[in-house]
């Protein structure tokens, strides 16, 4: 008997419908105030951290590099978006997506500029050089006070990061990365993680794909940064320090390097902890650090490993079970 499979177009239709339903339902629920304001605010922060984690996962989990300057890209996006929005170049409806795009592109361009030299270096060197770039970006923001407001901060940024905008970006980010990974380009990125020399021997332009993954990752970090700016309405350079990069890395590692579902779940849990388990605050960083070490010692691929959730697969399984049960009943009847 041939295994039951949902056809490709059907999968796309089911998934699209579910995403639309999720966005509409989420929008209505958050607008209704049913959950209360704290949860609404938390949901928005969760969304921003999902984008940050999923995008970092591209360069850490999929590409197998360890950039430690993700907060730097976030900062570039945040400031680019904020400056764009404050300038009021475009009318408000067009301004939001345009600002997000500007933020993403600014971060991606810097990602390429940093990536080309940095990615020539391997492993630990890449980590340290991106860490250095992150610090340089922070120092520059501090010193360009006429543009960025310096340490005094950039204030009065329009606060339009609501559920709808943030989660549309979350979905775009997740889909774009998913589509990328399930293509020849994605396989090329994975092959670099698996074995760089073998990848090169298969004719893969490893430098190109490293820079591409890096730029992609920076692009979405930039968008997350702009959403962050639009959520708080105030930017200060101190918000984008090394610890922010480490926090994002922690989400990715705990969720599972190479697992998008893992990043989403870990980002949701870790970002919500201050609201739901304030009692843990004092021990939280200790627990995180211990978890990081324990995960590396006992399950280096992270809690979810490279497992990725697929709704269609789940549906297929359920339907297959149904068919199997039916055929059993038929056999029984016969």
């Amino acid at each position, binding site marked *: 008997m041939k295994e039951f499979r949902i056809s490709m177009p059907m999968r796309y239709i089911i998934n699209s419908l579910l995403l639309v339903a999720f966005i509409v339902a989420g929008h209505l629920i958050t607008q209704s105030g049913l959950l*209360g*304001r*704290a949860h*609404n*605010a*938390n949901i928005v*922060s969760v969304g921003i951290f999902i984008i940050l984690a999923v995008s970092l996962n591209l360069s850490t989990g999929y590409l197998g590099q360890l950039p430690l300057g993700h907060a730097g890209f976030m900062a570039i996006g945040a400031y680019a978006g904020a400056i764009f929005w404050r300038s009021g170049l475009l009318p408000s409806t067009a301004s939001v997506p345009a600002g997000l795009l500007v933020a993403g592109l600014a971060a991606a361009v810097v990602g390429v500029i940093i990536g080309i030299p940095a990615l020539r270096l391997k492993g630990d060197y890449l980590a340290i050089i991106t860490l250095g770039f992150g610090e340089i970006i922070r120092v520059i923001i*501090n*010193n360009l*006070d006429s543009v960025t407001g*310096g*340490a*005094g*901060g950039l*204030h*009065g940024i329009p*606060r339009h990061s609501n559920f709808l905008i943030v989660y549309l970006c979350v979905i775009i980010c997740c889909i774009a990365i998913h589509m990328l990974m399930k293509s020849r380009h994605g396989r090329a990125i994975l092959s670099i993680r698996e074995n760089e020399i073998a990848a090169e021997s298969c004719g893969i332009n490893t430098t190109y794909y490293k820079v591409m993954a890096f730029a992609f990752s920076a692009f979405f970090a930039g968008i997350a940064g702009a959403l*962050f700016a639009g*959520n*708080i*309405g*105030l930017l*200060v*350079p*101190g*918000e984008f320090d090394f610890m922010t990069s480490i926090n994002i890395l922690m989400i990715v590692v705990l969720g599972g390097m190479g697992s998008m579902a893992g990043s989403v779940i870990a980002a949701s849990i870790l970002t919500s902890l*201050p*609201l739901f388990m*304030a009692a843990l*605050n*004092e021990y*939280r960083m200790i627990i995180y650090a211990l978890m990081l070490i324990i995960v590396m010692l006992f399950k280096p691929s992270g809690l979810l490993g490279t497992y990725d959730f697929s709704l269609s697969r789940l549906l297929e399984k359920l339907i297959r079970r149904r068919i199997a049960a039916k055929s059993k009943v038929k056999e029984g009847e016969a």
Partner: protein
Amino acid sequence: MKKRTLKVFSLVLVLVMALGLLASCANDDNSDVNEITIGILAPLTGGAAYFGESVRNGLMLYIDEFNARGGLQINPILRDEEGNMTIAVTMYNYLVDQNVTAIIGSVTSDPTRAIVPLAFEDNMPMITASATHAGVTVHPDTGQVFTNMFRSCFIDPFQGTKMADFAFEELGARTAAVLYSNEIAYSIGLMEAFIHRAETLGLEIVHIERHADHAVDFVGQLTNIAAHNPDVLFVPGYNYHVALIGPQSVTAGLTDTVLLGADGWAGSLERMEHDPSSIEGSFFMTGFTHESTEQHVLDFISRFEAEYGIPPNMFAAQAYDAAMILIAAIERTLAATDYEPDSEAFRLALIDQMSATDIQGVTGRITFDEFNNPQKTAFIIHIVDGVERFWGTF
């Protein structure tokens, strides 16, 4: 079947109506209100926890003392914002969900500035004990005053201006240098005001140097400054900077220059307990002194010590006053109106009552100016023999 449902339904309806009536009766007169919920936001973990804990101690001392008197009870809901703007916004919204009447917070400027625009829209009465950035109460671009937001601490420009005056008038200084951190908004605010005031006074700024927030080596900057041999060196940093800049200024040969600071210096001696000799003779401005002659201040100090085992610092004292200002305004509002304490109308009335504050706190007599900043005396502290001596008000 149908009849019974109807019966139950009407019974429930009657009950609900009766309860509603009772409730509205109870609220006719606000003298019956015996509990008010307020929110407190402070960083209790993370890098700013030191400030957060001081502020919490001061607030809780006043609230406990007030509740112990009987009558109106204040029910505080304390939330940790970890010094993080995102968490601060979430926690602010949490407090709004809890229907608090007013909020005390937050402690440092950045999280407070992240919350203020939201609170302004909500008409949420707020007071902070320690957020000194000018933008906390006034929108820096439009100049619009956040009418709901008050504070019991000095603002950055005020301190910079005052210290320039002090150097020129009281110390007779004619040349000055500044060593500030361009990574700390507080430090920048003080530096700008100091320089601005110095220009008008004719106090010559001979050199300006900068440092990173987490810098440890200042010898380079101090050596550059020493080459200009200024009369005074203004260091608008925090106590942990002072603890390093002090000894290094000796190494750099800055022996004839008087160091000046602002309220960030509070606690410097604690940070230099093993060798405070290098900042001997320095002056700094603060909002609170232990060397008060007033009995209520001395009482506060002894009560604080009895409760927490350590003397109160400036943040704790300003927090004590912040709680006092808010709760007094709540009492006045309750007396003057009959709005429900969690209603918008009550909050608006409370904001009005807060602007009308005129209170004798442990940090001095406090009234608010049109920008909701406190009008109160500044204390100058002189470091003599390794201890803080009250030099005078200024």
